[in-house]
């Protein structure tokens, strides 16, 4: 009994010492995975709204799209900032924030950085859409899908788990519907704003 207990304690100690040095790296990877799922969901919901593919529930979808986008940005921030504590890479703030500065898998890293800044700018520009102009902002916002694709390429090219079955299965589950909706959106003519005679549209929903 004492022997078994000692073995459990030893195993726990081994695990604790084993995971300790990789904590920041693991956190960054987990945040990256979460960001990938959340961004794909945000793209799906955004395309459902933009393509007028769902009748009714538009205000709810709009809130969900906004919340998913903000959650994506938050997890992406965690994904990048936790790498600063990684004992193996030792990246500087510039390495994780400025494209083509890091010497580690430069192309894939830069792709991820560009995707993040693009998502940040295109996402947060929603709050300045009146200043930008709603039509102009709509045109600009379409590039968010391009940034999302860059993010997927970054995860496949640089992701530690990119070759793992669970990762590829998860990626397929969230990416395939979004790509399908994206193709559908591009095949269909651009959605025109609803005529004023139809059901009243809430003020907040006019913008998107």
């Amino acid at each position, binding site marked *: 009994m004492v022997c078994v207990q000692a073995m459990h304690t030893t195993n726990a100690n081994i*695990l604790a*010492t*084993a*995971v300790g*040095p*990789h904590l920041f*790296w*693991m*956190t960054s*990877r*987990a*945040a990256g*995975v*979460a960001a990938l*799922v*959340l961004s794909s969901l945000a793209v799906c919901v955004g395309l459902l709204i933009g393509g007028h593919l769902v009748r009714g529930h538009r*205000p*709810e979808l709009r*809130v*969900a799209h906004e*919340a*998913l986008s903000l*959650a994506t940005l*938050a*997890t992406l921030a*965690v994904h990048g900032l936790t790498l600063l504590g990684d004992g*193996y890479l030792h990246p500087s703030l510039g390495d994780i924030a400025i494209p083509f500065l890091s010497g580690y898998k430069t192309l894939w890293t830069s792709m991820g950085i560009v995707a993040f800044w693009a998502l940040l700018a295109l996402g947060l520009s929603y709050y300045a859409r009146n200043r930008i102009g709603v039509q102009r902002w709509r045109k600009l916002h379409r590039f968010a899908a391009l940034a999302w694709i860059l993010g997927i390429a970054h995860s496949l090219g640089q992701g*530690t*788990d990119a*070759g*793992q079955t*669970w990762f590829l299965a998860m990626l397929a589950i969230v990416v395939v519907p979004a790509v399908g909706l994206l193709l559908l959106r591009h095949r269909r003519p651009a959605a025109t704003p609803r005529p004023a005679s139809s059901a009243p549209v*809430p003020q907040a929903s006019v913008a998107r």
Partner: protein
Amino acid sequence: MRRRARRIRRAVAGLAAALFAIAFLAIYVQLASGHDPALVANAARRAAAESSTAAESSSGSESSTATESSGGSESSSESSSSAGEESSSGASAVTTSQS
């Protein structure tokens, strides 16, 4: 609508936290069980380097001590096999550095 919006935002925050926790757990289990892709690849690379170094040193000792008794070559093969064991166990050890 405001209440519904708050509920949606809360649900999304919960989803984000759950996704992060599940991913972290999956990575933790993968790492602790010695199946982390980066660490396994690194350990395999190290094992290959060690085995090639051991092979080089053993072939070097064989050529230099060709006239010596067979005991010398036995000891060199022992050392190379033990190095191989160490490196293969290194694949399951999770304290190796990541690639």
